[in-house]
């Protein structure tokens, strides 16, 4: 290889610096970045790195069965710990298999560092075996990416990757490492830069004081306020201060799918998730509000419904660390760019001071009237599914989630896949704490749930971790059952089995005249109990409502504490998720059941 001769001969020593190969530097840099786990899969271009991993003890490498699963594990690890998750894959198919997981993390702003092996520099661009332009392929779904040129660049690239991934609006960063730069025979001085300075990157920290004062005044003058809090509050560790502000003002709080848990889900001030499958009361409260405090939320199309008809009377305060999120979909009247905790703490101080000066604000009578209306909405169409069990009744998916809530004492880490079961979990599991609900909100990645649960269990080995899934999503990454056995991960998988791609089928029922194009496969489903037993785990199958309680209790019993358990819950295949936004309408336009809509009653 000529390039190696030209560009990659061992570098000059630096005083006091150890001479290491690129492979060793990479692993050492990960150690210095505080990495605990690497989720990955070896292959040709990554072998020097894998050898370096073998020769050390500090970082544990978790061998997955498919690279996509590695990215979801790292992603979930990051979601529950707040630390960047780390992935290592080889070039070509290893790298492209990781793309779905990278895109998932990107859409949900999750810090992740993905190291991909690359073919040697000398053959880049020649269509070499297992060559893919990883920097190019991943470009639209990463916060940033690096292509390493020589061994001595590795520590800086890793240090910058962690800095960029974890600060500002977090996101995944790819470090593409050509094989020659990790050559064990080429040594260079190892220096890990603790301080990273980039002239072109300075994420927002404190919010503008004048804007925060304006926001405080608007909040205190509001008569029909609502706090709309999203995933940014969780990522930015702002849950505590948000909860203090909300409680002190006694304002209603709604959460986005990503924000669940940032305000206690069992608190009476919590009016449920908003948006496409949000509660009636959350969507009605939003639509009728005169002031919306949006924190770490991005007015996603699954929240706003038709932006033209979005909350006509509301003044909008929007706090976000990413200026590009502000006024992207809905114009913000009082935009505040800054780190959520810092902005909310400043806001809290001003609110407290203002209220001491003027105890008349916020106006008590107006707030009481507002709460009366909200309680009416909550009473009319809250989430209250029938829980009495008739002997031959099919299991309703909502009942299964409520049972899960009951047997876990509401204190489990819940991951989900994507579809009806995800919405049922979001609606019915009342998350009392942040970082307990792990799901692919933005990208909507089926196959996320199982590996995500595994990533959570690695982060917290003693915690109760349950994956709520559907049989469709589960089959997208079920090969990881093998990884569960290898590492003894006692996760509990609750599959709401409706023998169909439920959400697709629901849309086909509602919008395509009930034509179930390619959404059913009931004749060809595996017997999941036997399947998981073949993988060495414990399986249950529940088909009647009466068996739900005993089986769920057994699944979470101390007897099976150390086991991976799969509960195949056969649910009513005809059940739909409601409420559901009526396309093109405002937030108050909802289907409430198969036969009723919000327009039929007088709820204004």
């Amino acid at each position, binding site marked *: 290889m000529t390039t190696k001769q030209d560009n990659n001969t061992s570098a000059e020593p630096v005083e006091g610096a150890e001479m290491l190969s690129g492979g060793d530097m990479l692993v050492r840099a990960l150690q210095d970045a505080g990495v605990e786990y690497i989720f990955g899969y070896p292959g040709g271009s990554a072998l020097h790195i894998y050898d370096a991993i073998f020769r050390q003890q500090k970082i544990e490498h978790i061998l997955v069965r498919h690279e996509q699963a590695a990215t979801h594990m790292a992603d979930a690890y990051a979601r529950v710990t707040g630390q960047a998750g780390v992935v290592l894959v080889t070039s070509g198919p290893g790298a492209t298999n990781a793309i779905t997981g990278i895109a998932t993390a990107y859409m949900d702003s999750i810090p992740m560092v993905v190291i991909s092996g690359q073919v040697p520099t000398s053959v880049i661009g020649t269509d070499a075996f297992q060559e893919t332009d990883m920097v*190019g392929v991943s470009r*639209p779904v990463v*916060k*940033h990416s690096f292509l390493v040129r020589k061994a001595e660049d590795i520590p800086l690239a890793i240090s910058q990757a962690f800095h*960029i991934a974890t600060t500002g609006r977090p996101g995944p960063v790819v470090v593409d490492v050509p094989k020659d730069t990790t050559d064990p025979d080429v040594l260079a001085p190892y220096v890990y830069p603790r301080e990273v300075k980039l002239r*072109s990157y300075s994420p927002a920290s404190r919010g503008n004081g004048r804007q925060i004062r304006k926001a405080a005044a608007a909040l205190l003058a509001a008569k029909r306020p609502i706090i709309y809090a999203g995933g940014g509050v969780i990522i930015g560790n702002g849950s505590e201060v948000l909860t203090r502000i909300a409680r002190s003002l006694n304002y209603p709080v709604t959460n986005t799918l990503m924000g669940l848990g940032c305000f206690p889900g069992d608190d009476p001030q919590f009016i449920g998730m908003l948006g496409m499958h949000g509660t009636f009361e959350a969507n009605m409260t939003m639509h009728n509000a005169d002031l919306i405090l949006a924190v770490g939320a991005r007015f996603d199309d699954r929240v706003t419904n038709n932006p033209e008809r979005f909350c006509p009377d509301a003044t909008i305060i929007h706090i976000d660390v990413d200026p590009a999120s502000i*006024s992207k979909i809905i*114009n913000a009247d009082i935009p505040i760019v800054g780190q959520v905790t810092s902005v909310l703490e400043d806001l809290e101080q001003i609110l407290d001071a203002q209220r001491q000066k003027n105890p008349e604000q916020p106006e008590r009578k107006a707030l009481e009237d507002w709460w009366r209306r909200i309680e009416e909405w909550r009473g009319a169409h809250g989430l209250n599914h029938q829980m009495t069990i008739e002997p031959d009744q099919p299991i309703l998916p909502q009942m299964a989630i409520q049972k899960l809530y009951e047997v876990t004492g509401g204190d489990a880490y819940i991951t989900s896949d994507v579809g009806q079961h995800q919405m049922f979990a979001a609606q019915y599991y009342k998350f009392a704490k942040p970082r307990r609900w792990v799901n692919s909100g933005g990208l909507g990645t089926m196959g996320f749930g199982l590996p995500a649960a595994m990533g959570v269990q690695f982060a917290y080995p003693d915690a109760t971790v349950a994956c709520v899934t559907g049989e469709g999503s589960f089959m997208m990454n079920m090969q990881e059952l093998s990884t569960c056995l290898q590492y003894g991960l006692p996760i509990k998988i609750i599959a709401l089995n409706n023998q169909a791609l439920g959400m697709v089928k629901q849309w086909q029922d509602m919008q395509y005249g009930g034509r179930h194009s390619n959404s059913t496969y009931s004749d060809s489903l595996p017997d999941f109990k036997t399947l998981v037993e073949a993988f060495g785990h414990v399986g249950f199958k529940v088909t009647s409502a009466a068996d739900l309680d005993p089986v769920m209790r057994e699944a979470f019993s101390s007897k099976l504490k150390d086991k991976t358990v799969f509960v195949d819950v056969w649910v009513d295949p005809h059940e739909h998720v409601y409420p559901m936004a009526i396309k093109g309408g405002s937030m108050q336009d909802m289907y409430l059941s198969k036969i009723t809509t919000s327009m039929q009653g007088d709820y204004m």
Partner: protein
Amino acid sequence: MRHIIAVLLENEAGALSRVVGLFAQRNYNIETLTVAPTEDPTLSRLTLTTFGDDGKIEQIMKHLYKIIEVVKVVDLSESEHVERELMLVKVRAEGAVREEVKRTADIFRGQIIDVTPTGYTVQLSGPSDKLDAFIRAVGKVSILEVVRSGVSGISRGEKVLTA
């Protein structure tokens, strides 16, 4: 409305592809794009022109600024500025029209930089609409080939764009 956006970015491999990729990815369009290193070799200066309402331009600016390698972004159209574009045109110039092409080039302060018995290559610089006007004046039938550099822009007065 047409906007001229000036971007200072790290002169690194891959930085340009991120800028161009952003426009494709977010369904913004680029009308012209020109880029070269500055007097500081670690920085490149890029000028692009695009169309959009204020909301769209604001989003473009914010998203450009989010690219890690982007150091500064300025919408030159927001204030007084000078824009120039370079154009080379190969024109058919035979018989009676030969003299007329020469005269038109003179009127537009163009220079003839290559001559053959049947045609001229004319070099012109100026704002884009002046170059458009030259093409109209000569007439599409006479034009054999056009190459344009895309717009470069700089603000008037003492305002400067530096890292």
